[in-house]
């Protein structure tokens, strides 16, 4: 198995799309954290960060669909359709694929509730959206466990980069939450920043 042949094309496609999906999911998590804390990206207005978060999510779902479809279609190992959604039902590496199946189910829940946000209400949507924090680590462990080439080389490098980027975003989120100004003080803080010192002294 040193090159891509007719028989191995699906196997390679499945693994490649898996890696791309993980990178995209990492981007989605980081963008989601930015949206939550009203963070900005250089040169983009606030609403564009939200738009990017949504669009990259849909791109990730598209790659995930190809990843799952090629894994099922690949004759090298037999993974039933059911095993892609039912955790631990696969004959091949049931534990590691099971984690992937849970991750897939969670992503489905996140996408469906986001599309139906107007119907289910903001609070319910928000509660379900917290699942994103469970979904992403499951996907990472699934990648590590089910794929031999994730244990070294370039793929491992990508994985480590994803974990580090997410950890950094998470740390920033927690510190931003700690720095958050209470609602009642927001205008006062801006006013203080805006006022030149003589006016500040005069109470204006």
């Amino acid at each position, binding site marked *: 198995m040193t090159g891509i042949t007719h028989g191995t094309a699906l196997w390679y496609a499945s693994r490649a799309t898996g890696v791309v999906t993980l990178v995209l999911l990492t981007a989605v998590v980081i963008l989601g954290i930015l949206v939550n804390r009203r963070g900005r990206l250089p040169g983009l207005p606030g609403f564009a960060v939200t738009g990017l978060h949504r669009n990259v999510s849909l791109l990730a779902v598209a790659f995930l669909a190809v990843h799952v479809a090629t894994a099922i279609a690949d004759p090298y190992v037999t993974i039933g359709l059911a095993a892609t959604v039912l955790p631990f039902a696969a004959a091949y590496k049931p534990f590691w694929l099971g984690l992937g199946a849970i991750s897939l189910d969670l992503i489905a829940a996140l996408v469906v509730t986001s599309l139906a946000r107007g119907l289910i209400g903001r609070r319910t949507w928000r509660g379900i959206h917290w699942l994103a924090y469970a979904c992403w680590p499951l996907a990472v462990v699934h990648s590590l466990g089910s794929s031999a080439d994730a244990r070294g080389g370039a793929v491992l490098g990508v994985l480590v980069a994803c974990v580090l980027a997410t950890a950094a975003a998470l740390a920033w989120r927690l510190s931003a939450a700690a720095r958050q100004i209470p609602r009642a003080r927001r205008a006062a803080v801006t006013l203080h920043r*805006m006022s030149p010192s003589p006016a500040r002294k005069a109470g204006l």
Partner: protein
Amino acid sequence: MPDTLTIPSSPAQPGGSPAAGGGGLPRLLPPAGAAPADLRAHLARHGALRYAGGRGRLTGEVAAAGLTGRGGAAFPVARKLAAAAGARPAPVAVGNGAEGEPASSKDASLLWLSPHLVLDGLQLAAEAAGAPSAVLYLRPGQRLHARLAQAIAERAAAGIDAVGVALVRAPDRFLAGEESALASRLAGRPALPAYRPARGLPRLAPARSALVQNVETLAHLALIARHGAGWFRQAGTAAEPGSMLVTLHLPDGHTTVAEVPLGIALADLLGLAAGQPGSGEPGVSCGPVPVQAVLVGGYHGTWLPAAQAARLPLANAMLRPLGAAVGAGVVAALPAGRCGLAETARVARYLALESAGQCGPCFNGLPRIAAALGHLAGSRPDRRAVTDLERWAGLVTGRGACHHPDGSVRFVRSALRAFAAEIGLHEAGRCSGTDPRPFLPLPADPPSSDADWS
């Protein structure tokens, strides 16, 4: 809010005889010199409360009377009553006496002097909506609360109320009476305006809406039910019928609450006369005090140069084309010798600090605007401050969940027009203000924690 109340003088004192239009003013307030009305005095003067006899029955008479909301928005009351009569389940009837506007004291005066008229109106609103219960939402003040609690107890003892009335204390915030903020407070949360303005009646719970009317509106309702639409229309203009309570800030520093017919000339209301006293110079004065500008509609209202204001009536038909409105009836005449820019800057700072801190354009924009005005109020300001103000004003308008940014910006923009000459003076390093004392009233403490909204 301080626990002091303005005892109204007869409107004839500040200016002329506005009651000449008929309909017998004052209607809502006791005649000058009379004591606050207890239940016995109230019944002796107005007669027994006349219920309309069922849900939705009062709507037609109110529509014929042309009564509009006296809380500031002048929304037709009949339309709200019709919406409430059609709502299922029946909404809660709410009397809004939050009166967060520091320059207004007409609601507190009315509640103090004629509590039973307001409570009559609240019962009628509850009947019109088929409401199972009613709430009176009151600005802070122990004396006022005690008085209303006593009035409610008097009525319960006399057995004249169809539904029970609960008293709820409003926080001492400018936006506490905003309808969605009120709904939030009644639902047990802080009195913050809603991110997304609800359409139709505000909701207290998913299945419970509220019919909210200003307390003065309720008092008018109580009289329309007794005397009919024709009587109500004997005061005011055809387009804006009836009387309204106004809070007047006179140039000599006195504050008074009066009941006047809508459409009264501002010159009569404030006692404005052409010419400077003691000389033949042009200008406008109130008694011996020269007046430079008039603020109409309170801190979400509009500054008008005194000469312009002296030709205008207190009527939205004439004020709206100029970007002004009657609002909740706050009218202030700024005397000469006070700096209009300094006054506006003080109020703009207060308005910025009263932002609920929810919408970016409001909590980022209003402080910037207030700071720029503070700069203009100082000596030798940078000309760019005016262009900055206009730009920020445009960025803020229409982008808040509630009307706070829009109203604040309207107030600031009108000051830039009315005090344009003063800006020129400041640029030259001078100021027409000789009296540094603040003129417009402001409360002392801005909110410092989110608990200040509860």
